C-alpha cells in the first residue's frame, strides 16, 4: 500500500516525450536507442494516445501489441470477476509503463485497464521494444531491475493478503492514505475494498465498527482518523 501511495504522488505531472526518456525505464537506454525511440514516436502521430477519464483501455486477457509510456494522468490495472468483485493491482501515473510483461512474453494483458483521469500515453510497438532490449544492455538491465521491484511489491501484497486480517489491512490502508492536508484523492467503500482484497459490505461493516470504537468519524465528504494509535495497533494485528 505504501508502494501504491508512493506511486500516486506524482500524478499531477505531465511529461513531454523528452522528459519521459529521462525519467522512465527508458532513461537507462543508450543514446542511440533513445534517438531511435524519439524518431519513431515523433514520426508516428498515432503513437500519441489520449484517453478521457473512465475510458477502458484493455480487458484482461486481451492481446497486447503495444506498451504505453504514461505521459499524463492515471491508469488503473485491476482484476474483475463477472460478479463484480475487483482487485486493484496497480496505479500507473506519469513516467510509468503499461503492458511491459506482455511485451516481454508475448502474452495477454495481465489485467483490465481504465483511465481514472484524462490520460495521455505514448504507444510503442512491443516488437520494437523487444528489438531495443536485444541490442541495448542498459535498457535490458533497467527493465530487469524494474521487474524485480514489481516482484517485491506483488510479493508484499500477497503476504499482506495472506497474513493480515481484513480489519488490519483496512487499518493499514487508512493510515497510509489519510492526508493531513486534504488533497484530491476521493475514495468510496468500494474502491477501498478493491485495494485491500475484500468487498464493499465488509469495508462498510468494519468502518462502522471503527466508528463505534471512536477510531474514526464521519463528516460530510470526509472520513477522519480520530485515534491514530488505535489504528496502528489494528494495523499490526495487535
Amino acid at each position: 500500500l505504501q508502494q501504491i501511495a508512493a506511486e500516486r504522488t506524482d500524478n499531477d505531472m505531465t511529461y513531454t516525450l523528452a522528459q519521459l526518456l529521462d525519467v522512465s525505464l527508458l532513461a537507462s537506454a543508450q543514446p542511440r536507442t533513445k534517438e531511435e525511440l524519439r524518431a519513431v514516436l515523433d514520426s508516428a502521430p498515432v503513437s500519441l494516445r489520449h484517453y478521457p477519464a473512465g475510458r477502458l483501455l484493455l480487458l484482461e486477457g486481451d492481446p497486447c501489441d503495444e506498451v504505453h509510456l504514461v505521459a499524463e494522468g492515471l491508469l488503473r490495472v485491476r482484476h474483475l470477476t463477472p460478479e463484480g468483485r475487483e482487485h486493484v493491482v496497480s496505479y500507473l501515473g506519469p513516467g510509468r509503463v503499461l503492458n511491459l510483461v506482455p511485451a516481454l512474453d508475448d502474452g495477454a494483458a495481465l489485467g483490465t485497464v481504465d483511465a481514472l483521469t484524462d490520460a495521455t500515453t505514448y504507444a510503442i510497438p512491443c516488437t520494437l521494444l523487444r528489438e531495443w532490449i536485444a541490442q541495448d544492455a542498459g535498457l535490458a538491465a533497467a527493465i530487469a531491475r524494474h521487474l524485480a521491484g514489481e516482484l517485491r511489491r506483488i510479493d508484499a501484497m500477497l503476504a499482506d493478503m495472506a497474513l493480515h486480517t481484513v480489519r488490519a489491512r483496512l487499518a493499514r490502508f487508512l493510515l497510509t492514505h489519510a492526508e493531513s492536508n486534504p488533497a484530491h484523492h476521493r475514495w468510496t467503500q468500494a474502491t477501498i475494498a478493491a485495494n485491500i482484497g475484500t468487498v464493499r459490505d465488509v469495508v462498510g461493516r468494519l468502518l462502522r465498527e471503527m466508528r463505534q470504537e471512536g477510531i474514526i468519524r464521519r463528516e460530510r465528504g470526509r472520513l477522519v482518523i480520530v485515534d491514530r494509535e488505535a489504528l496502528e495497533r489494528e494495523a499490526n494485528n495487535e
Partner: protein
Amino acid sequence: MSATVHPSLSGIPLLDASRCTGCGLCAAACPCSAIRLDGGLPRFSCATACHGCEECPSLAHCLFPCEDACPERAIACEFLLVEGNDV
C-alpha cells in the same frame, strides 16, 4: 490529474442511474429524510437536509446508509481520508 475538489465531496452521493431500479430503499434508509424519489430516481438534498451523521445522536452507527441500503450498488458516497481532529 486535477486537484480541484469534486462536487460530490459536498456530501451528495453519486448515483449510477443505469443501475437504479427506483426501489426507494435508499430513501427509507436515510436518517435525515434527505432523499426523495422523483421520476423513479432518488434526488438527494443532503446539502440542506443533512447536518452530518456525527452531529446526530440517534445515528451512532451510521456511516453511509443510502449506499449500504442500495441492493443494486447504484449509490457511492465519495470521501477524503483525513487525519486528525483539527482539519
